[in-house]
């Protein structure tokens, strides 16, 4: 490994110049800094500089009891907080071999998929914002707001839910919620064509996203890209399908994948995924059984010594929580393998030789949550 490069913001000798993209830049969606070496509008080299939002999440989790760390994991990916909670509780449940009641499984899946749609909707708007269109952002917000209302109705919170508990849920859902979810699913299905009319078919959007930022299949595998970015490159790999967790094997859904690997492919995958999520939610609502929402688990969680790895498909890709227990009330070691970090690693490769505008489109299409990258 060579020493990390040092930057001076003076023009370099060969007429190129360094451009500091971020840490405060509307196109990086957070405190990400990318140092670009530019030749005019072309990017010769891109170097993401991380750590502006580093909060030592892993270390914090190691210094807390299993339950106390639960609110913290939501903070990493505030747009897919449900999936993070799910990963954490599932990891602990796997470690302690807790059973989860069927009703709780259905609600968990429902909540996670609603959250996934909300996350994809926000991405949809933010990506178009990167491409210079403002209306999609707030149009997506109008629908996302309904999901947040739904989730707030059951969890009491709009973003960092902290709703799941070991062995079940914090609180039960009622029929009003289930009916509202059904209404949302039918309503959103009807509104989806508007999204396609406004953006998917738009010729400018096509020009901006087609053949831009192509991730080749072998690169995707080599860089450890997961989630919609991987599925955009031709792999129909989805943890929900390949290693079903939390009862995902009970539901029928397809794993959309595209072959091209460009921004448009990633876009299409996410749009198709929203429809699949709707299908999952529909099934979960239709088949939700009555019964307890929470299994009886010890008040103080003291897992047996051992280790566990729990993989979960978050809206951004595969999240793996690796946890080592020494038999005490606190985890001995926690490691998060977060999707945004792996997806960001390919950005430098993709941005090379691109125009500045394309680089931002690529960055947007990777759907980054910077606190997740930095942790």
């Amino acid at each position, binding site marked *: 490994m060579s020493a990390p490069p040092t930057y001076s913001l003076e023009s370099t000798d*060969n*007429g190129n110049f360094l451009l500091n993209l971020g840490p405060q830049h509307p196109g990086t969606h957070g405190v990400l800094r990318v140092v670009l070496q530019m*030749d*005019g509008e*072309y990017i010769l080299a891109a170097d993401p500089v991380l750590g502006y939002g580093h909060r030592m999440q892993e270390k914090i989790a190691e210094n807390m009891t299993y339950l106390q760390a639960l609110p913290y994991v939501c903070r990493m990916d505030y747009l897919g907080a449900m999936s993070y909670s799910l990963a954490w509780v599932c990891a602990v449940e796997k470690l302690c071999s807790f059973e989860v009641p069927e009703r709780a499984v259905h609600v968990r899946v429902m909540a996670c998929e609603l959250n996934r749609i909300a996350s994809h909707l926000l991405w949809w708007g933010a990506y178009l914002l990167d491409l210079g269109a403002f209306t999609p952002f707030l149009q997506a917000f109008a629908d996302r707001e309904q999901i947040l209302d739904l989730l707030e109705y059951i969890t009491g919170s709009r973003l960092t839910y902290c709703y799941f508990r070991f062995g079940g849920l914090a609180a039960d859902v009622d029929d009003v919620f289930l009916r509202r979810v059904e209404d949302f699913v039918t309503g959103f299905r009807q509104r989806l064509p508007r999204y396609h009319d406004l953006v998917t078919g738009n010729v400018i959007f096509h020009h901006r996203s087609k053949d831009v930022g192509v991730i080749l299949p072998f690169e995707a595998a080599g860089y450890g890209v997961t989630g919609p970015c991987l599925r955009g490159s031709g792999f129909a790999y989805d943890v929900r399908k390949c290693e079903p967790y939390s009862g995902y094997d009970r539901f029928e859904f397809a794993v959309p994948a595209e072959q091209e690997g460009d921004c448009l492919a990633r876009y299409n995958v996410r749009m198709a995924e929203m429809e699949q999520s709707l299908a999952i939610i529909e099934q979960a609502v239709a088949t939700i059984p009555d019964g307890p929402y929470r299994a009886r688990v010890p008040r103080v969680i003291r897992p047996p010594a051992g280790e566990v790895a729990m993989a979960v498909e978050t809206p951004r890709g595969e999240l793996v929580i690796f946890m080592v227990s020494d038999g005490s009330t606190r985890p001995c070691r926690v490691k998060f393998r977060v999707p945004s970090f792996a997806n960001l690693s390919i950005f430098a490769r993709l941005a090379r*030789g691109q125009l500045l505008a394309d680089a931002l489109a690529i960055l947007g299409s990777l759907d980054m949550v910077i606190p997740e990258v930095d942790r």
Partner: protein
Amino acid sequence: MFASFVHTVYTLAFATILLLVVGGALLAVTARNLIHCFFGLVGALLGVAGLYYNLGSPLLAVMQVMIYIGAVCVAIAFGLTLTRKQGEEGMRPLDIKAAIPVVLVVAMLSATLKSLAGREIVASARKIDESRIGWMLLGDYLLPFELISILLTVAVIGAVTIALINRRI
């Protein structure tokens, strides 16, 4: 009283135009920063447009703005933004060789002024009809007009060729 006020205003306007021409031209040749030179040139050309207007040809003045500022200067600016080095240290505009054109210009100017001495200069107040210019361009002066277009075509082809050679990435 009122007439003299109008006269003062016009004199001031004329002085501004002159200042623009001379100052702009001086800035264009003496400034060390390339972009300052460029804007000096723009100023000088704007001033020349003002002179045309003053001489009773608003059409020519507008054309001056459109062609020299709108087209030529923008093309120069386009070139400037494409140049790699802004050449601040390598340039020494006040070279001794620069004296040669200065001497020549002074000589020419003094000769012109001498030949004009004693004569009364009357600006033609006759309005130039645009349609007459059109007929002239497509009649008596068709050949030079066409030659200019060939020159422009050559310039465009040359630019495309250079762009193709230096095509990057």
